[in-house]
């Protein structure tokens, strides 16, 4: 009997989940959110995750002090990764919104931006996991800064795409 109750609850939860998805999709049609990017200082982020900087601190600080400082740096880096992840989400949405644009070059750029941003998002997820592990073992694991380079590439794509779209809007309005 208990097994049936548990199975019943899980099934009901699943159907409720599906219903929420349908409801959210229908309500999203009417409320499109404004596009907004969080400002991120990539230089500061690169410094926080720079292996040379980390090596310097390791050599010049007592072991306990290094661990404490390193944990603080990792926590700060996590905040940056979180902001980058949110920006990647915005870039994904921006790319997706112009994927079916009548102008093929804009549509292609949108597709490329979306792909890069998706890769960035996945890299952010991996970085968050890595940073969490580094937080536990600050002396053994070192955080990676490759996520910053991916972000720059995706953001550059977005700037190019945006320039194209704005130019097209201007051409359309002048004709």
């Amino acid at each position, binding site marked *: 009997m208990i*097994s*049936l109750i*548990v*199975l*019943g609850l*899980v*099934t009901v939860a*699943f*159907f409720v*989940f*599906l219903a929420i*998805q*349908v409801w959210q*999709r229908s309500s*999203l*049609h009417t409320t*499109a959110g*404004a*596009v*907004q*990017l969080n*400002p*991120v*200082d*990539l*230089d500061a982020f690169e410094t926080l995750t720079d292996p040379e900087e980390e090596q310097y601190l390791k050599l010049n600080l007592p072991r306990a002090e290094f661990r404490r400082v390193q944990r603080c740096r990792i926590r700060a880096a996590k905040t940056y990764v979180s902001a980058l992840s949110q920006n*990647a*989400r*915005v870039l*994904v*949405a*921006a790319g*997706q*919104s*112009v994927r*079916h644009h009548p102008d093929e070059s804009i549509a292609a750029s949108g*597709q490329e931006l*979306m*792909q890069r941003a*998706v*890769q960035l*998002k996945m890299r952010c*997820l991996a970085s968050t996991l890595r940073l969490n592990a580094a937080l536990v073992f600050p002396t053994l694991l070192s955080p990676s800064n490759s996520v910053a380079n991916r972000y*720059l590439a995706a*953001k550059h794509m*977005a*700037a190019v795409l*945006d*320039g194209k*779209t*704005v130019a097209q*809007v201007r051409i359309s309005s002048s004709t």
Partner: protein
Amino acid sequence: MTLEHYIWLYLWIGPHLLLPLVAVLMYRRGQHKAFPIFLGYVFYQFLQSCFLLAVYLLKAPEVIYREAHLFGTAIETAFQFGVLQELFTPSVATGAPLRRGNARMLNWVAAGLVFVATFFVAALYYSKFDRPMVHTYLIVESINAAQCALIVLAFLWYRFLGLRMSPMAFGIAVGIGLETGADPLVVILKNSVSPASYPRVDILQMAIYHIAVLVWVYYAWVREKVPSESNAGLPQWTEQAHELERIVRP
């Protein structure tokens, strides 16, 4: 023949007659390129139902019907896993290496979920292991639970990435979700009601399948809406991008 029998017959034939419509709509909207496995699944379900209906109408021995149904369900399950893989793939990649990597990761996730679901279902049926057919139930329920979990993951994955599912992908996910979610519901009901009420439980399951097919028809028919706000907001977004550029590279 009672009204209940007519309803039962309609719910058997009706949804399967709508399946070719799903295929035609998919072709007209060009969705067959993005979801070839789902299209194959639709054709397969149509052909399977034609065969089973013929077996039923020709009054063939019950064992033939049962074995054909069992064999058909196994193929159907394989198709469903393929369809679920299609749901994840277009969101991430158009390049072959990324698709392959994504498919490999998904296979591992699916295997892990089946493993976890088997433990979960085995724990539920622990006290009934000596009863007949319980092992078959265990396999079917484990696969259903894993598929439901994969559908939940698909929705969460899209949300995590900030991607909007295409109407067809959304429809497929909801339809398959209804189809796989109905099975445990039937198990619960059949364990709770008298055998005389089993046909009504079957009718409920068939009605849920009918809704799933209607969901596929609707989402195959509806066009993807591109929010007009996205284009209107782009110049404003450019300003924000330039601002970000200034902050990042002073």
